[in-house]
């Protein structure tokens, strides 16, 4: 991101590569942390690894980065998500306990829409004729009720192989309690069809509740034959070019895993893109030299069709245990489950709403103005793109209000047609409401902002968290256009605009740790447990984690093991996560119990002191710390006056002749006072009156809201 083209003959580098729908972003960081470079190249959809290599080649050329000097490479990819959404997963088979082979067809037994006669239930990822029941049964306590019929497994495997499947998922009832039958089934499949890929539910998701567990195994089975070779090929090509290190991949939980692990567990990659963006936002905030900015942030990514919000406390994003891949948007209530395919792996908890740059504004039949979720997307796009779109969108509103420069959109790569934007807003919104065009445009922006404000409140206030203690970190092309107004409405004091909001994801990949997550179902009342029984399961998972970290060459002093218990009252199902203190005495159980009751009180407003508690699952996270890049040496500029490139009329609560600054000409320590527009290649920052922005030495803009007397 620095302009100077230095050569580092001896330096070593880390690279983060994020492959998005349009662009492949490459961020290169010198290991001494002093230089951060970035390259944007076009994504190559037919073979995304081409774009990956093109990006590296360009970085190598422009910044003198020797491939052999790359010590660490992290990759984020949408290949897993796209394979599911576009139905391009591998043909797979499923073996279940006999009598239960329709588990995918039945799913949650609900319909995904309540009042739509023409709804569709998601089509199972494995068709019914490739789902086969196997005589076997293990009870909830792990006792064998019916022995495994291994001959039936072999027969089924041969049948499925003849059908052309490339992977077989095995998901038997209560396999979380005892995986013995699943493991013997794997051996039987290997005997019948050597080389067949086998995915066990007890390996990918050893948790109770059969449908989400089976679904997770099936998603992994459908992905492995597609994602595994992609990663292998990428590794191969990188090795050919002399890349001197193993490749890592970003996971849905915001951690990274080795390429080797990712090939076996691609289900962990499904939400890696959004996760990387959140990690990037947290990293940027953590790098600020500016004193007094909260280390707790709300990451707000505004794209073309949706906006996503996540909450990060002191660098640690909130995690969800389960999500659905292929669902239209992340549901806000559990009542609307069943729109996609459940995946039970840890994922950064996000709220996604239908409001982005392309969201369409219209007057509904009741006479109210609504914005989104319908989107014009990139094609036909907003009216002002002149690519066939006729409807008024959020981008059109921003243009009409003077917040975007028609000549400098995406650095001038697309010229916007302000007349078309005005016409669309006049026809669709202003005229029906009896408003002026600018007033109508402001109404569109206010309503879009209100939706994002609701989403932020949903993940903060609902959790008992006051958003005013947080700093807002926007990303995506439209993020900085809206962020300051949203923050002001929520009563936030600070907005942190990253230096390159469009590159947050690639940067985030270099700003996280190796993370391996383990889970085991225990499902026993706390009072029946002993410290020894608790630690034997935790140690087992911790040992497996340590072994993986050793395999990743993580030195002992950079490893960390975190243990958590999921606890609820006997009879409840939705457990709260409680950290397990490093205490080997029997006292540990009382500490967990007390921490749970306190957490229940704060979350739900009541807590019984006497009712028995239950440990449902135990979790272990094995962390391998990775050094962070440092963003500490942003150029000093020629002063604010020199960075001002234009003045134009911008509509805030009234039209104001507003100075426009070129962000690349602003230097560390410069202060821009609102009203102002700060433009850069991938976005524009809108500063209303009463706000000011300071360029932090790390390159971010720190916007302070509530500035007196200007």
């Amino acid at each position, binding site marked *: 991101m620095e302009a100077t083209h230095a050569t580092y003959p001896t330096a070593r580098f880390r690279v983060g590569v994020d492959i998005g729908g349009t662009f492949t972003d490459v961020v290169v960081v010198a290991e001494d942390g002093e230089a951060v470079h970035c390259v944007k190249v076009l994504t190559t959809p037919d073979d995304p690894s081409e774009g990956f290599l093109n990006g590296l080649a360009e970085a190598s050329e422009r910044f003198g980065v020797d491939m052999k000097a790359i010590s660490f490479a992290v990759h984020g990819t949408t290949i897993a998500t796209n394979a599911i959404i576009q139905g391009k997963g591998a043909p797979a088979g499923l073996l279940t306990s006999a*009598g*239960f082979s*329709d588990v995918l*067809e*039945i799913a*949650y*037994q*609900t*319909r995904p829409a*309540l*009042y739509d*006669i023409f*709804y*569709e*239930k998601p089509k199972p990822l494995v*068709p*019914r*004729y490739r789902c086969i029941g196997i005589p076997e049964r293990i*009870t*909830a306590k792990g006792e064998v009720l019916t022995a495994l019929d291994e001959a039936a497994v072999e027969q089924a495997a041969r049948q499925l192989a003849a059908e052309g499947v490339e992977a077989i998922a095995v998901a038997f*009832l*209560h396999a*979380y309690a005892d995986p013995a039958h699943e493991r013997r089934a794997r051996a039987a499949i290997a005997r019948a069809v050597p080389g067949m890929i086998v995915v066990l539910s007890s390996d990918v998701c050893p948790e*109770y*509740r059969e*449908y989400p567990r089976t679904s997770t195994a099936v998603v992994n089975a459908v992905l492995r034959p597609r994602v595994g070779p992609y990663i292998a090929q990428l590794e191969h090509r990188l090795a050919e070019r002399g890349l001197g290190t193993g490749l890592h991949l970003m996971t849905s939980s915001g951690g990274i895993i080795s390429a080797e692990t990712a090939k076996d567990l691609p289900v962990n990659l499904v939400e890696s893109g959004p996760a990387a963006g959140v990690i990037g936002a947290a990293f940027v905030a953590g790098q600020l030299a500016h004193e007094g900015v909260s280390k707790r942030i709300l990451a707000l990514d505004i794209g073309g069709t949706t906006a996503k919000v996540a909450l990060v406390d002191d660098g640690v994003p909130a995690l969800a245990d389960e999500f659905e891949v292929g669902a239209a948007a992340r549901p*806000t*209530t559990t*009542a609307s489950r*069943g729109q996609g395919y459940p995946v039970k792996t840890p994922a950064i908890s996000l709220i996604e709403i239908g409001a982005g740059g392309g969201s369409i504004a219209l*007057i*509904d*039949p*009741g*006479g*109210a*103005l*609504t914005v989104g979720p319908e989107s014009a997307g990139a094609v036909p796009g907003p009216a002002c793109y002149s690519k066939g779109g006729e409807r008024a969108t959020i981008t059109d509103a921003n243009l009409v209000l003077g917040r975007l420069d028609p000549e400098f959109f995406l650095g001038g790569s697309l010229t916007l047609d302000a007349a078309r934007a005005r016409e669309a807003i006049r026809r669709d919104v202003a005229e*029906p409401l009896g*408003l002026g065009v600018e007033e*109508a445009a402001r*109404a569109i*922006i*206010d*309503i879009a*902002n*209100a*939706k994002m404000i*609701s989403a932020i*409140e*949903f993940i903060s206030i*609902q959790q008992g968290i006051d958003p005013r203690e947080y700093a807002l970190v926007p990303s995506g092309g439209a993020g900085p256009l809206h962020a300051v*107004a949203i923050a002001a409405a929520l009563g936030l004091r600070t907005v942190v605009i990253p230096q390159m909001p469009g590159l947050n994801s690639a940067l985030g990949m270099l700003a996280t740790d190796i993370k391996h997550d383990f889970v085991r179902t225990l*499902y026993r009342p706390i009072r029946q447990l002993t410290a020894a029984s608790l630690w034997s399961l935790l140690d087992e998972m911790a040992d497996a984690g340590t072994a993986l970290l050793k395999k990743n060459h993580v030195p002992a002093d950079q490893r960390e093991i975190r243990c958590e218990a999921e606890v609820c*009252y006997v*009879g*409840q*199902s*939705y457990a709260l996560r409680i950290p397990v203190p490093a205490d080997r005495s029997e006292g540990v159980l009382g500490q967990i119990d007390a921490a749970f009751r306190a957490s229940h009180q704060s979350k739900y407003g*009541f807590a019984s002191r006497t009712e028995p508690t239950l440990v449902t699952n135990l979790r272990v996270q094995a962390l391998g710390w990775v050094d962070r890049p440092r963003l500490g040496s942003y150029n000093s500029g020629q002063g604010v006056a020199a960075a001002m490139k234009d003045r134009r009329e911008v509509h805030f609560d009234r039209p104001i002749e507003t100075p426009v600054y070129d962000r690349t000409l602003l230097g560390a320590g410069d202060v821009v006072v609102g009203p102002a527009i700060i433009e850069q290649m991938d976005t524009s920052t809108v500063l209303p009156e009463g706000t000011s922005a300071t360029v932090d030495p790390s390159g971010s803009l720190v916007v302070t809201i509530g500035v007196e007397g200007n």
Partner: protein
Amino acid sequence: MPDIMPGSKATGLTDIDPVTFEVLRNAVINATEEMALTIRRAAYSTNIKTRADFSCAFFDSTLRCIAQSFAQPSHLVAMATIAPASIREYGPDRLRPGDAILVNDPHRGSSHLNDITCVTPVHFEGHCIGYLANMAHHVDVGGSSPASLGLNKELFQEGIIIPPTRVAQGGEIDDNVLNLLLSNVRAPRETSGDLRAQLSANFVGAARIVALTRRYGAEVMRQFFDELISYTERWAAHDLAALPSGSWEAEACRDDDGFSDEPVRLKARVTIADGRMTLDMTGSAPQLASPLNCTRTMTACALAFVARCLVSPNLSINSGFLSRLEVTGPDGLCCTALRPAAVVGGWEMAQKIAELIFLALHPAMPERVPASGKALIVNLGFGGMDPVRNEYFCYMETIAGGGGARPDRDGATAVQTNLHNTENAPIEEVEMNYPIRIVRYGLIPGSGGAGRFRGGLGVRRDFEFPFAACSFTVFSDGRRFAPWGLEGGAPGACARYVLDPDGEATDLPSKCTVMVPQGGRVSVQTPGGGGFGNPGERAADASAADARNGYVLDPS
């Protein structure tokens, strides 16, 4: 908002600007959704925490329903009726901050006794500004058999009847009232936990409404409520007026009332005119001495469900929408039952009424109406002593079936239909918590009615009681009259309820309580959906996929 809110005088939104309006519209819905999340996470019974058989709503101080979270359509009208009725009866002036009242009386405007509604007032600066309410299906409220599903003749046999009763005062639960309730139910620990979850949800919702009022002011909130109701009503009227207007009739039968073999006749006259939709059930069977009755409120839920399917998908659900709908005709029918009618199985009636409305409308809008589907709840309840835990256990669940084929596509397989949409209970969770075993759970091949578009498949779930004998109740229907097809589509398969399915295979009536011996099994087999259009016109690739996937039976 930092920017000035533009005012608008051009549309019907006269008293409030469009931005504030839209912001508040989303915010109150979010408040009810937060309530839904709270109740689900804090609840104890499988029926609420896993199957999500509950709904949440906000009412303004004039007792109009302003917003609902969309959990169960069956609660659509029920809560909008019982919450205001109970507040009026209890006396709004007697409700202080932190108070809560419970009510479940079907004949005061609720559904069946298992659906307990909890209502809490919200105060701001000393004035009541509205009420939060939630309705949740409790696993047991006493009565003659586990899960309160007994085949009874009067309401008094079905469980404890709760008139509007204060259960909490100043945020504290009144143990006298709670103990009275818990002494009358079979699963007091679950009921107690579920009631606390319901209270907790209301307090969460109240905090949110207070915060909104603090931000926008009580006067703006009042204007917003007025405008939201009027706006929704305008929109509903617009959409209903766009449908063909006229009056249409249809008839169908439920199998029996559980005491005789006599079919129970239902007759519906549906009228769409002047932006309103009405349903008159004159000609239906008189009130029964059986729990198959449903109340007028439950019948209105069926009407509201169908109407909601026919209007714009973004239309809000509140009193503005509901005011365009009405169930007319006499009281005292099997579908407008009065005290002391038993009603626990009334949803089986209401489910069929929803489809009867679709059937009546079919000639007027053939491209918008599905064939008949499962149209049942399939209530299953069982209970007895749990020899492992040495405590009384009580469990209830409902099983999905086939959806009716649509004019342009097949019916969905293994879904809940019409008025409810409860999830299944995971087998692993059930077997961990109750002394039962599920030995089979799958689709029933061939159960979907043939057609150009095939009906969805029904589901079979078999239960075993390995540890002790158990009382098992099924309260359902659909063994005799199959879900109809439309335009030449074949009917779906009927339901079956079978004792000892792998041995003597005795067919059980659709409404009964039996003692299943230790080690015994019961099989529940739900109906498939009816087909749509001539089966001969089915696309070849669709037929091939049916055969390959075993959705249809091998003709040989």
